[in-house]
């Protein structure tokens, strides 16, 4: 029954003459934590946006949760969660109101919302803050909350776009505990990051350079393949050859 969560074949996105994503192919297994690495401007976000149904690919094929990115975007949207690099909850809504809102637009019933809300507040130990405005929380908590809200509707896949930017190492560790817990619950995790220690936490990673995927394997194998000590060296080895960068 082990079906693939994401299948990508020659997926391409072109903006005029600029090929942002150049024929990338990969598969992600269900329940896997898949790291999607690449320097700034390598095309990660563009690729992710196509998979989330936010933009149409120029060519190639891809299915997400078994649905085609070209004509089944609505079905894809029902089955995925998304958390962007910008913190994205409403600051002038309380924790519970945010949960009610985001759960609500995914069509959760009042009873489900109430249960979920309580459960979430309990696991994050935010009982005292439940009625506080989100804007008053420290960034680390906000990020954890945003992640929990992104998977509130039990999606098959969750896309995380640099979810731990600007957070301290302890909170990042806690954040990854949440990711592992989600993966244990059967949610496939597709995550982009710039932190190489986080890359090591992934089951498999891919590294994008100039719109292509130049490497794809488990962290251990990659290190072997590039005869490198750390993931940092692997990444550096690959990204050094990049022709485009944002600086």
């Amino acid at each position, binding site marked *: 029954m082990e079906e693939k969560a994401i299948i990508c074949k020659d997926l391409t996105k072109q903006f005029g003459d600029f090929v942002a994503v150049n024929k990338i192919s990969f598969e992600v297994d269900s329940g896997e934590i898949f790291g999607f690495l690449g320097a700034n401007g390598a095309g990660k976000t563009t690729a992710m946006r196509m998979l*989330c*149904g*936010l*933009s*149409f690919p120029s060519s190639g094929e891809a299915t997400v949760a078994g649905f085609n990115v070209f004509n089944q975007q*609505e079905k894809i*949207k*029902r089955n*995925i969660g*998304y*958390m*962007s*690099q*910008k*913190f*994205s*909850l*409403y*600051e*002038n*809504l309380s924790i519970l*109101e945010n949960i*009610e*809102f*985001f759960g*609500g*637009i*995914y*069509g959760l019933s009042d009873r489900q919302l109430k249960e979920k809300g309580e459960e979430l507040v309990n696991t994050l130990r935010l009982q005292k803050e439940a009625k506080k*405005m989100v804007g008053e929380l420290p960034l680390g908590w906000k990020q954890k909350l945003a992640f929990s809200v*992104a998977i509130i509707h039990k999606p098959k896949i969750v*896309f995380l776009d640099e979810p731990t930017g600007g957070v301290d190492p302890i909170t990042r560790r806690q954040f990854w505990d949440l990711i592992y817990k989600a993966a244990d619950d059967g949610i496939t995790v597709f995550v982009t990051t710039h932190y190489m220690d986080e890359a090591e936490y992934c089951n498999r990673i891919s590294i994008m350079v100039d719109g292509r995927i130049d490497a794809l394997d488990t962290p251990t194998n990659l290190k072997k393949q590039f005869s490198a000590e750390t993931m940092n060296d692997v990444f550096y080895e690959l990204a050094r050859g990049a022709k485009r960068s944002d600086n």
Partner: protein
Amino acid sequence: MKQFLVFVRKEFYHVFRDKRTLLILFGLPIMQILLFGFALTSEIKNAKIVVVDYSKDASTQKIITKIAASSYFTIEHNILSYDDMDKAFKQGKIKCAIVFPSSFNEDLKHTNKASIQIIADASDPNTARTLTNYLISIISNYQAEINANVQVPYQIQPELRMLYNPELNGSMNFIPGVIALVLMIICTTLTSVSIVKEKELGTMEILLVSPFKPLYVILSKVIPFLALSFIDLIVILLLSNYVLGVPIRGNIFLLLMESTLFIITCLSLGLLISTVTNSQQTAMLISMMGMMLPTILFTGFLFPLENMPLPLQIISNVVPSRWYYYVVKAVMLKGLGLQAVWKQTLILLGMCFFLLTVSFRNFKIRLA
């Protein structure tokens, strides 16, 4: 449907928790009404006038008393010399002066013809014109008095009738303008800012990744502001009716329908602005500077459109509030029906349709 309600409820939370929004929403209309109603008026009262009287006789005294008695003027002080008067004008102490030549009474008695000089500070031409008109009418009033016993062979007596506004209540002219202005600001600015804010925060992406359709995102953004603008409209109408005494003569239902049309037009304008910008500041700037100024200038409630040069008159045609202003004046003040404003209604409908189509198309292009 339930998702929709959840969304609308969230929008109301945003509005009611943001003091700035609340201030714009409810402070602005009330402030505008009171400001225009009581503080800013084009009527001139107690203008300072100087009388230079070289004649000093019974008839000049009578005229001076009449001037002093009118509420338009206060007599500053009797300046005797021409030079002093010149100085007073230069210092801006007086708006107007009246000079009686020394031979005034003699001339009047013996040659049956005397002249008076009226001097006004025309750096503000409207005030100057109004003041000189007041003075001329006071003088002709006196003239009529001294001619009371004389049978003038031909006499034309103008009978004035001020239609729709017999008391010449200044509020009548600007209330429709203020309604247009307030609705314009609230619908355009608040809508565009609230949508752009979601883009800036990154929540827009989350919404677009959710199964909630983009069209519904827009709709649920727009509906709370539609409701709030409607409340504002009612507040303004109540204030202008009960505080400023401006009557609603026409069909209130028609007035509300036309206002809804205008509100939707402004909302679509706000939507359009939100599709072309990504920062709240830009959105604010475009809708405040880009929309408010033309609304004030080209609606016609402060500066009459008929007096503008042709190019400006042509530009004024694309300002939606101009048409709405006409409709409100016609329906609210003159009590006219749809047959009198159908043309303007059609123009507004056209604008509304055009703006909606363009902004929806823009919104979709942005997503692809």
